[in-house]
């Protein structure tokens, strides 16, 4: 529907946002993509009404560009987990234990340079003091879902992924990453400059759908 409101959102939000949009009375067009790509497109004048990103730095950038109206607000949160192949059992977050579990394999994670999940992951591993030991054994992916898929298929023994993604995808959580080891994972949302009437309501509706976010693992 051409008059549908357009929401551009980080790809990792897809399961939750699809469900939330279905609870909105009017049709909503959901365009998913990488946070960086979306941010640039918004800045270039993409006809979106609401934007949701997976990283605060890109949202800050959008704000600095004057591409959004008002302040950004966080609508959801997330946590990191160490996902392992089923039956692998839990792993202790020490260099020796992780390396033992990896064997000749690698630890899959988002590329810290380009993927927010990777950035949080690097912070956490550094805080845990095992980044240096693992740095030769990393497998960096262009989005966090790919890291998950490698684990699910057994190509790598471990992956550092979002808790929301690890649910019911054929992996088991080998370790929870303590939240204090990295900056809080938040999904900032904002109204795009020039958003159409109703966009603010939609954004409010999304922000208010915490039950659905929670059901998909996006702990606020």
């Amino acid at each position, binding site marked *: *529907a*051409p008059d549908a409101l*357009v929401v*551009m959102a980080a*790809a*990792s939000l*897809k*399961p939750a946002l699809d469900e939330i949009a279905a609870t909105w009375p009017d049709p909503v*067009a*959901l*365009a*998913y*993509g990488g946070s960086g*790509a*979306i941010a*640039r*497109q918004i*800045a*270039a*004048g*993409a*006809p979106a009404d609401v934007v949701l990103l997976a990283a605060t730095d890109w949202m800050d950038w959008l704000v600095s560009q004057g591409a959004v109206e008002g302040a950004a607000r966080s609508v959801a949160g997330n946590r990191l987990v160490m996902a392992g192949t089923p039956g692998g059992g839990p792993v202790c977050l020490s260099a020796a234990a992780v390396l033992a579990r990896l064997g000749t394999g690698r630890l899959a994670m988002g590329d810290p340079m380009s993927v927010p999940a990777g950035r949080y992951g690097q912070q956490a591993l550094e805080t845990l003091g095992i980044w240096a030991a693992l740095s030769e054994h990393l497998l960096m992916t262009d*989005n966090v*879902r790919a890291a*998950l*898929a490698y684990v*699910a298929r057994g190509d790598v023994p471990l992956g550092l992924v979002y808790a929301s*993604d*690890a*649910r*019911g*995808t*054929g992996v088991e959580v080998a370790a929870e990453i303590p939240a204090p080891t990295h900056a809080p994972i938040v999904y900032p949302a904002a109204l795009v400059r020039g958003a159409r009437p109703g966009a603010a309501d939609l954004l409010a509706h999304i922000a208010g759908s915490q039950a659905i976010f929670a059901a998909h693992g996006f702990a606020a």
Partner: protein
Amino acid sequence: MIDLPPEAWEALALSLRVSVVATVLSLPLALWVAHLLARRQFRGKGLVDAAIHLPLVLPPVVTGYALLLLFSRAGPLGAVLEPLGLSPAFRWTGAAIAAAIMAFPLMVRAIRLAIEAVDPKLEEAAATLGLSPARVWWRVTLPMALPGVLAGVTLGFAKAFGEFGATITFVASIPGETRTLPAAIYAFLQVPGGAPGLRGLVLIAVAVAVGAVLLSNWLAPRVAARVGGR
């Protein structure tokens, strides 16, 4: 038929529209450029040739960003087109532009090789029969190069149909407007555990690809026969 969600059919229809428009509209330009490269000598020819090949060698994302910068509200083209309501940014026409640019080097290459293979002696003969260079091109060069043109069009269409990186970077992936089949496949791939329609979408993409190539292979000998065996 395969059981597919309605967005999948929407994406297929959009992809077909985008790739057909991209191929058909860029064909005349491709013919012209291929002709220039095959038969003319001019300063900067090498650079023109290289420029045409850029979209092929650069990561599609880079091409997409370049388009985005060009057509964005503040960009040199966007600033002109936007007020006229003609901006292709975030519209299916933008997807067609991205697809055309990505397909262009393939079309030009194939057509150029075909034109180079036309014996200039026959063009000479046509000139002595009173045909101007333009009519020689139309009545001798083009018909004889037709199998190569067909190959170029197939290749271009296939590339346009499969193009993804530049498109999604330039016009994003807005359902019904710019979410092409490959973009949909990409989105479906992103669903942890795999979305239910993924298999069907990939099958459709494969079917279109195979169909285009088979059609071109079926046409090629017929065109070649019309064009005359050696």
